[in-house]
């Protein structure tokens, strides 16, 4: 079974530029998550999708971050404009059910904002 695919693996941009990350979840997984992991910390949820609907985006900085999951499969996360404090690893995860089931994570995208 193929795992969660993310691209790119690494990205370096200047502050105020925009960037987009892509995620392809495990086939059949209805729930998709985007987490942000700052160096030395645990991951923090940015947004959770159930199929193509948003379940939780309470911690998404909506003035600069946006995410979509068209057709309930692939998802993209965008940052525009980026700030220095956005430097982090962005992790995508998916799970079969919305609750009481393990989530599987992709390799992540390491973003460096200079």
């Amino acid at each position, binding site marked *: 079974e193929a795992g969660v695919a993310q691209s790119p693996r690494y990205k370096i941009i200047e502050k105020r530029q925009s960037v987009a990350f892509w995620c392809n979840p495990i086939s059949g997984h209805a729930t998709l998550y985007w987490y942000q992991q700052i160096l030395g910390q645990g991951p923090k949820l940015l947004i959770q999708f159930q199929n193509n609907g948003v379940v939780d985006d309470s911690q998404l900085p909506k003035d600069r971050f946006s995410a979509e999951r068209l057709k309930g499969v692939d998802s993209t996360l965008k940052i525009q404009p980026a700030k220095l404090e956005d430097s982090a690893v962005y992790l995508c995860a998916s799970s079969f059910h919305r*609750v009481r089931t393990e989530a599987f994570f992709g390799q992540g995208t390491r973003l460096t904002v200079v």
Partner: protein
Amino acid sequence: SQELEQSPQSLIVQEGKNLTINCTSSKTLYGLYWYKQKYGEGLIFLMMLQKGGEEKSHEKITAKLDEKKQQSSLHITASQPSHAGIYLCGAAASSNTGKLIFGQGTTLQVKP
């Protein structure tokens, strides 16, 4: 808001030694998940604990959930260099969400 505290923050052990990592929640646990992470990579799922008193084992790793104490522990027996990495505990934020609140992680080094 819920917080998870992991202890210790880092650990260096000699190969073959046993070790325990603890995870304590500030609120009721609705499910506790253990993950392992190699530096700069994604999280690898280890175990999920749902009920108080539950204990699960996989190879040389055992995890337990003490719901009353709002705690979980991860025990590794006869550690090997392949066990090195960052161990993260994650708790379901509520009973009806898959959103996880993570601890800060415990970095494990195993010396050959």
